[in-house]
């Protein structure tokens, strides 16, 4: 029982909720970049929230079903079609053996999540089915999907079609996207005026935006506090002795273009960081398209935790709506 990839789309990978615990040897969390959307998709088709599904970027694949199933597409507005006939997003629908799922053009967002009842049953590697392409690990053969791939499906429970996530419970970034951050880590390396400017500027998502990290450009270059380079750091003012990079951390190589690390983060390196995006806003980054405007808004730890609670309550409400 499986699905067959007819055309793969731009960069379609198998993801779940991730692979914590191995960052200390350079293996990142991985997992869906927009967790809320991924969990919603699984709930819609009656899967456990952590079942493996497809993460689709910008352009959809064509997929043939080799058994009956229930399917839901959430996240980006990438309208699904069954045998050419459009289906709603954020809503579960039935497919029959032999049906072909394809997609219309992307209308909004960046990443769509395709959950199939039973989940995608690739092997569990280090506790997760997520794909980490840089390390050729997990997912389907450790890579993005290609034409002709056949992915096994798990056993499905009850068929649940026509269920929908109410619009009020679907979260997506505004324009400009407001990304809340806690300043810190090496924030003291830049001048006070430069810090204020960083937060005041409107940035644009650069074309180099993927699962490893999102790059932004268009703001003013940062001014550094002068220093004698510490031994082992390197001579550029943005260099540090190679250190760990938190998920969500914002590094600014040479002080020009901030990069926010995401689920496939490189685990460490030699660039200073001005802080990190709060956990509640990481989902939003996964839905940003290149050239979209974005701002970094400094918040306190208390505000970050309130936002985190709001996000947990939102998941609870989605669970209740689909119970």
């Amino acid at each position: 029982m499986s699905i067959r990839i007819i055309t793969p789309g731009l960069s379609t990978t198998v993801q779940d909720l991730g692979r914590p615990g191995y960052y200390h040897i350079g293996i990142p969390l991985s997992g869906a970049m927009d967790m809320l959307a991924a969990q919603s998709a699984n709930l819609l088709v009656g899967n456990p929230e952590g079942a493996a599904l497809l993460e689709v970027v910008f352009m959809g694949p064509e997929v043939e079903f080799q058994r009956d199933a229930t399917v839901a597409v959430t996240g980006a507005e990438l309208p699904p079609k069954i045998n050419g006939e459009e289906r709603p997003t954020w809503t579960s629908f039935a497919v029959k053996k032999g049906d072909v799922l394809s997609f219309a053009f992307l209308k909004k967002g960046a990443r769509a999540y395709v959950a199939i009842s039973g989940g995608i049953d690739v092997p569990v590697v280090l506790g997760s089915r997520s794909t980490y392409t840089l390390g050729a690990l997990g997912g389907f053969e450790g890579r993005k999907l290609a034409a002709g791939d056949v992915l096994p499906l798990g056993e499905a429970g009850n068929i649940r079609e026509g269920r929908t996530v109410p619009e009020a419970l679907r979260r997506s970034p505004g324009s400009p996207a407001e990304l809340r951050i806690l300043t810190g880590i090496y924030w003291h390396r830049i001048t006070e005026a430069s810090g204020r400017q960083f937060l005041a500027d409107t940035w644009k998502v650069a074309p180099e935006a993927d699962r490893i990290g999102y790059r932004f450009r268009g703001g003013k270059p940062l001014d550094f506090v002068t220093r004698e380079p510490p031994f082992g750091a390197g001579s550029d003012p943005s260099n540090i002795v190679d250190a760990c990079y938190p998920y969500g951390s914002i590094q600014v190589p040479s002080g020009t273009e901030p990069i926010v690390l995401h689920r496939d983060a490189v685990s460490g390196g030699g660039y200073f960081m001005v802080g990190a995006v709060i956990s509640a806003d990481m989902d939003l980054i996964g839905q940003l398209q290149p050239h979209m405007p974005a701002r970094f808004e400094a918040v306190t730890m208390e505000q970050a935790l309130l936002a985190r609670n709001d996000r947990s309550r939102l998941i609870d409400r989605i669970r209740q709506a689909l119970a």
Partner: protein
Amino acid sequence: MKTRYSFGGDEHIFVECDEEMSLQAFFKSLSITNAVKEAKIAGVTEICPANASFQIKFNPDVIAPEDMLKELKEIETSAAKGKSVLKTRIIEIPVYYNDPWTHETLMRFRERHQDPTSTDIEYTARINNLDGVDGFIKAHSGAPWFVSMVGFVAGLPFLYQMVDRARQIQSPKYLRPRTDTPRLTVGHGGCFGCIYSVRGAGGYQMFGITPMPIYDPNQKIKYLQDFMCLFKPGDIVKWRPIGRDEYDATVADVDAGKFAPVMRDVTFSLDEFQADMNGYNAKLMGALK
């Protein structure tokens, strides 16, 4: 050496043991992270030691950030009283210096290098006042290195040479990063050595290549069947220069499942090391014989 704490978002605490690299800073990072591991604090999900710093990832729904910070500071105080003694292992890594594959790659990206007229080894030898390629190989392989961090990508070790600061090899990174580096390249940037665990982009100088895989996501290689990454922070590495014949023979042995790395359990004492670096290193390396 003043410890500096900072939150990294609401899920991380980033701790800088020292701004500059030293064996003491690395040891402090390793002993605190080991103590955090032993403390089994509910809510801690990832413990990541680095060269002169470390990072703890935690779930703020389980432990409040301020409580997490307090726990860490208490552990720092008690870890500082402990002896800097580490039960670890020394691993011998065969290196084919000046090999044809990294040579082909460094020639391909020569315009991105500080000195397009010489190779990475020649350049690094010169700026470190070493006597040509041979002098470089002697210095590089003559004393052991600490694995002071594992990361960037899966299983990649950062290595810090266990010699006086004055003798440490230093080199800048490429002016612009390469888009390609052969798998298992032995590289160097700043004061750190590394082994590229996978093929890919890179900015470190390239000195040679090892025939010994250090990362196997499919876990087919015998010595990587227990775990897919060879290195852990705190491992000690000794490079052993080899030539083309041994390189080819080792690659064949790896493919045939016959290769076993040479590694021995050792105990490392920072105090004893600092009292007599050369003598202590000789003793450590003697364990490999």
